[in-house]
């Protein structure tokens, strides 16, 4: 059963964090740090009469991808929505700090995000974890580590996970992957239904979904929803992550300023796609992964040397 769930064609969206790690990396190459038998669990959840997980919903370790050494952190989106708590956050932060401080560790870190953001039951610790995580990513990148986010799970990358994704060197997304900070319901509640109708699933998916993120440069590669799809996309990116220096920062600033100027007045994703010169923007939704990836690769905004 586990074999089928981690095979190349198995769905990334449906998989657990452990199945994703096994399906993404070379067979039997993964070594886990702070594995479930060490029982590094949340000290808070039992106060709410909630069950905890032996790994607090995060799997960290090292392995190989196509023979290249990599560090990996994977969030379990099915456990408490993949949220950042005190322990789950600290595990990812610790891995990044280790990469920052030890040059003999792999220089690529894959961050398999699948999270609704901060865990509300341990909110202060979770908020701190996200802040520490963003800092740790920047420091690791300064130290020459390429931090690549992979987004394609059921919980997407929202709240602190959306912020975290934006801090990474590169982002890979699938069609089912959603990246944003505030979720649709949060926006509707605070700003009104005229601003964003959370019931309008076509609107929500076309805005937060992987295809839009890829087209407007919010993600650097589009993966088919499978282990092999993410593996191929990561492999293609690993070789060409730009150095994290002043030049890259300035290029990123210019990229974001230009994007805001170009799309700032748009009401929805389709009107942004029209500005990008896509002839049939409404056909994007039903386009299959291969055709879409090729289209995205041909669009200037989507392909840049910044971030």
């Amino acid at each position, binding site marked *: *059963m586990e074999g089928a769930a981690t095979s190349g064609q198995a769905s990334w969206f449906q998989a657990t964090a452990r199945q994703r790690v096994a399906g993404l990396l070379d067979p039997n190459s993964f070594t886990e740090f702070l594995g479930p038998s060490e029982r590094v669990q949340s000290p808070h959840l039992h106060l709410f009469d909630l*069950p*905890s*997980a032996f790994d607090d919903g995060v799997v960290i370790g090292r392995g190989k991808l196509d023979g290249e050494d990599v560090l990996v952190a994977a969030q379990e989106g*099915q456990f*408490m929505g993949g949220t950042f708590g005190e322990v789950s956050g600290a595990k990812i932060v610790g891995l990044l700090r280790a990469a920052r401080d030890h040059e003999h560790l792999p220089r690529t870190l894959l961050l398999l995000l699948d999270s609704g953001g901060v865990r509300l039951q341990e909110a202060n610790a979770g908020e701190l974890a996200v802040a520490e995580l963003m800092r740790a990513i920047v420091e690791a990148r300064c130290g020459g580590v390429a931090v690549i986010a992979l987004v394609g799970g059921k919980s997407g990358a929202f709240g602190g996970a959306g912020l975290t994704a934006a801090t990474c060197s590169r982002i890979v997304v699938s069609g089912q992957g959603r990246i944003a900070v505030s979720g649709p319901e949060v926006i509707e509640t605070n700003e009104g239904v005229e601003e964003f109708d959370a019931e309008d699933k076509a609107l929500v998916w076309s805005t937060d979904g992987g295809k839009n993120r890829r087209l407007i440069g919010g993600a650097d590669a589009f993966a088919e929803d499978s282990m092999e799809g993410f593996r191929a996309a990561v492999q293609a990116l690993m070789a060409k992550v730009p150095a994290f220096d002043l030049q890259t920062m300035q290029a990123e600033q210019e990229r974001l300023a230009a994007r805001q100027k170009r799309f700032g007045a748009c009401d929805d994703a389709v009107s942004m796609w029209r500005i990008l010169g896509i002839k049939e923007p409404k056909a994007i939704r039903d386009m299959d992964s291969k055709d879409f990836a090729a289209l995205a690769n041909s669009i200037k905004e989507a392909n840049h040397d910044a971030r």
Partner: protein
Amino acid sequence: MQTLRFGHTAKRRLPGKKDIAIIGVVASGNLEVLLERVLPEAACEVDIATPLSGYDETWKAVVAEFVERSSPGGLRISINDGGARPDTVYLRLMQGSAVMEAE
């Protein structure tokens, strides 16, 4: 949270070399099962943490059936339950022992 512990003497040691396996996820209607080969030959211990109380007899019956069917001697089995139905619990236990037996 309710915690339960069941001790069994299995018919035999569970074959295989794997020392540890983890199956399932703590989610609604699901559970995670951690299996560790740390006990003497025929001993089997099952520790359960569940947010639902009052199902002691059901847990007892499912665990006894599992021990009878798979004879998991040598295993300490720890469960974090997310409110799984008995058939799901049984399935995860059987999957876990199958993984421990593999290779």
